[in-house]
C-alpha cells in the first residue's frame, strides 16, 4: 500500500520535473532564436511580507514601461532587442537585498530598477557599483543612498532631506505645531526622514517633546503613545510605512491622544485609508513629487495602469519613469552594455510621467516637488504642493 503510494508520488514528481525542464527550455529558446537580443533588467522590491502591496506596485510600474518599450520595438546599435524584467523579492530586508542583488548580477542583468526601501537599496548599491551595473531606485529616499559616491546609483524620487525639510516647516508653520512628538520605525527610511523633520522643526522654532521608536513589524503602539500623551504634544510625526501608521492612528484615538497626526510618503497610500478606516480622517501625509492628477502624464498613466494592474499604491509612476530612463539611456548610447549607457544616464532629459526626468551629478532626480495631502471623507485630498527648489545635493 505504502509502496504503491510512494511509486505514484515518485511518478508525479518525475512528471513535474520533466514538464518543468521542458518549460524552462522553452523559456530559454528566444535567447538564440532569430536576431532579437534579450536584454535583462532587474527589479527588486519586497514581494512578500508587510510591504508586498508596495513591492508589487513597483514591479507593475516597471513592467508597464518595459512592455510598452517591447511593443514599440527598440533597436540598439542596429540590433532588435526585447527587454525582460527579472523581478526579485528582497523582503524589505537589507541582508536579503544583498543576496538578490548578487543573484541579479550573476544573471547578467544590464540594469536594476529598485530597491523599494532605502534600507535595502543602500547595501545593494555597493554590489551593483562593484559590478558596474546602473541602479535606479523609484522609491529609496534616504540621503545616504546617493551620498556614498557610487556612480551607478540613481533615483527618480526626491530624497528625505527635501521631504523632511518641507514636512518640518509645514508642521510648525501650517499645522501650528509648537510641541512636537516624533516616532520612527528604525528603518533607514523612517529614521532618516524623522531625523530631517526633527532638524527642520527645531530650525522653525518648534519644540521636540518626545522621540520614540518602534519597529517596521509592530502593531501595538499603546505604550509609546501613552508616554507621548503625557508630554502633551500638538503634532505627532511618524516616520514609517502604512502597516504601522494605520493602527497607530487608531490607537491614538482610543487613547484620547488629541495631537494631529503627520506622516511621510510611507503613509500616503490607498492602503492606509483602508487599514485606518475612520481613524484616517484628518491625517496629513506628504508625498514626493506631484499628485498623480497634476503629473504631466498622470491621467494617461493611471488609465493604462489600472486597466492592467488595478489600483496605484504610490510608487508605480516612479518605477515606470525609472525603467523608461534606463531604456532611454540605452537607446541614446545605442547599447545595453552598462559601461556604455551608464555615461548617458546623467545626461538624459525627458518628459516622464512624474515630471521632467533628469539626474544631477550625485544621481538624485532634478527638481523636487513635495505634495501634502490630508484625509477628508475617506480620501486623500491635496493640501498644497511645495516646490523645494533645486536639488539640495548640488
Amino acid at each position, binding site marked *: 500500500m505504502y509502496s504503491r503510494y510512494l511509486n505514484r508520488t515518485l511518478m508525479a514528481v518525475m512528471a513535474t520535473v520533466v514538464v518543468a525542464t521542458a518549460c524552462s527550455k522553452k523559456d530559454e529558446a528566444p535567447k538564440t532564436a532569430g536576431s532579437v537580443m534579450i536584454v535583462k533588467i532587474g527589479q527588486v522590491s519586497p514581494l512578500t511580507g508587510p510591504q*508586498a502591496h508596495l513591492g508589487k506596485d513597483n514591479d507593475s510600474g516597471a513592467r508597464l514601461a518595459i512592455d510598452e518599450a517591447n511593443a514599440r520595438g527598440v533597436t540598439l546599435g542596429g540590433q532588435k532587442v526585447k527587454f525582460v524584467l527579472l523581478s526579485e523579492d528582497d523582503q524589505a530586508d537589507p541582508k536579503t537585498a544583498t543576496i538578490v542583488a548578487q543573484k541579479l548580477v550573476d544573471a547578467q542583468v544590464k540594469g536594476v530598477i529598485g530597491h523599494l526601501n532605502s534600507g535595502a537599496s543602500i547595501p545593494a548599491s555597493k554590489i551593483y557599483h562593484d559590478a558596474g551595473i546602473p541602479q535606479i531606485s523609484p522609491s529609496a529616499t534616504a540621503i545616504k543612498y546617493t551620498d556614498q559616491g557610487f556612480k551607478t546609483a540613481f533615483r527618480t524620487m526626491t530624497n528625505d532631506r527635501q521631504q523632511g525639510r518641507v514636512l518640518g516647516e509645514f508642521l510648525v508653520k501650517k499645522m501650528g505645531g509648537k510641541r512636537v512628538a516624533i516616532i520612527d520605525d528604525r528603518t533607514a527610511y523612517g529614521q532618516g526622514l524623522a531625523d530631517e523633520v526633527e532638524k527642520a522643526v527645531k530650525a522653525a522654532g518648534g519644540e521636540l517633546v518626545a522621540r520614540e521608536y518602534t519597529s517596521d513589524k509592530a502593531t501595538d503602539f499603546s505604550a509609546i503613545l501613552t508616554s507621548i500623551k503625557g508630554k502633551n504634544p500638538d503634532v505627532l510625526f511618524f516616520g514609517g510605512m502604512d502597516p504601522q501608521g494605520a493602527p497607530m492612528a487608531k490607537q491614538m484615538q482610543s487613547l484620547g491622544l488629541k495631537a494631529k497626526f503627520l506622516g511621510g510618503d510611507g503613509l500616503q497610500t490607498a492602503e492606509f485609508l483602508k487599514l485606518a478606516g475612520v481613524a484616517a480622517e484628518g491625517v496629513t501625509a506628504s508625498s514626493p513629487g506631484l499628485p498623480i492628477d497634476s503629473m504631466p502624464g498622470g491621467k494617461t498613466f493611471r488609465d493604462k495602469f489600472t486597466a492592467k494592474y488595478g489600483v496605484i499604491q504610490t510608487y508605480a509612476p516612479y518605477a515606470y519613469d525609472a525603467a523608461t530612463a534606463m531604456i532611454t539611456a540605452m537607446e541614446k548610447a545605442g547599447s545595453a552594455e552598462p559601461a556604455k549607457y551608464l555615461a548617458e544616464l546623467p545626461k538624459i532629459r525627458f518628459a516622464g510621467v512624474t515630471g521632467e526626468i533628469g539626474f544631477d551629478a550625485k544621481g538624485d532626480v532634478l527638481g523636487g516637488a513635495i505634495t501634502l495631502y490630508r484625509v477628508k471623507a475617506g480620501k486623500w485630498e491635496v493640501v498644497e504642493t511645495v516646490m523645494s527648489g533645486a536639488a539640495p545635493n548640488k
Partner: protein
Amino acid sequence: MDIFLQQIVNGLVLGSIYALIALGYTMVYGILELINFAHGEVTMVGGMVCIAILQVLLPAGSVPVVVALALGVGGAMLVCMFLGLAIERVAYRPLRRAPRLTALITAIGVSIVLQNTAMLIWGKQYVSFPEVIEVTRYEFSGAHITNVQITIVLLALLLMLALLVLVYRTRLGRAMRATAQSPDLAALMGVNPNSVIAATFVIGAALAAIAGIMVSAYYGLAHYYMGFLLGLKAFSAAVLGGIGNVAGAMLGGMLLGIVESLGAGYIGPLTGGFLGSHYQDVFAFFVLILVLVFRPSGLLGERVGERA
C-alpha cells in the same frame, strides 16, 4: 499617575490576548510535552477567517451586524477547531513515539505550511477588519479604555475561568490531567488518550481563534505573518507562568503584557534615552531568558523540571 494607570490598562489588554494564546501552548505541552509552534498560526487563521466571513456577509446587507459578527466568530472557531484536530492527526500523532526533537521540527514545519497557505489564500497584503464595532471611549481618573478593550479583557477572563472549570471540575478535565501524568496508565484506566489529546488541540485552537479575532478587531488588521510574533510572545508567557500549568499561562500572559507596556513606556526616561521604546519586543524574550536561567519551571510550575 494617569499615565501609569493607562500603561497598566494597555498591558492588561495585551496580556489578555497573550494569555489566551498561551493557554493553547501550555495545554498541549502539559499533555504531550510538545511545543506546538503552529499554535500562533492557528491564531492568525482565526482572525483571517472571521474577516473573510464578515467581508462576505456585511456587504450583502441582509444580515444584522450582530448576527454577522456571531457567525464570523463561530465560523472562525469551527475552522480553527477543525484545523487543530487536523494538525494533531496529520502532523503530531504519527510522531507521538518519535524523539521529541522530531515533533518540534514538525511543529515548525506545520507553522511554515500554515503561514504560506494563508498567504496564498488571503494574499500578502494586510487585510483590514471591517469597522462593525462602534468604538466608545470611557475615561476614569485620566486613563482611557474603549468598549473593545473592556470586551477583550472580560471575555478573556471568562474563557480562562471556563477552562479552569473544565480542567478541574469535569470528566474530560480529569481525563486530561490523567493523560498528562501518564498516557499509558490513563489508558489502562479506561481513558482514550487519542481522543483526550485531540480534545486538547480542539479546545486550544478554539481559544486561539478567539484571540486571533480579538487581535485583528483591536488593531483593525490581520496579516498572514502576524501569528509568528504573537505565538512567540505567548510561548514566552507560558514559560514565564510555568509551561504545562493552566493558571500559570494566564498569570504569565497578563504579567508579560504589563511588563511590555511599562517597559516600552518607561525605558527611555529610566535609561536617560540610552535605550528607547523600540526595545518593546525585547522584553518578552528578556523575561523568557531570565525565567529560564533563574526559575526554569516558571512562576507557578512545579513538575516541569523533573519531566524534561
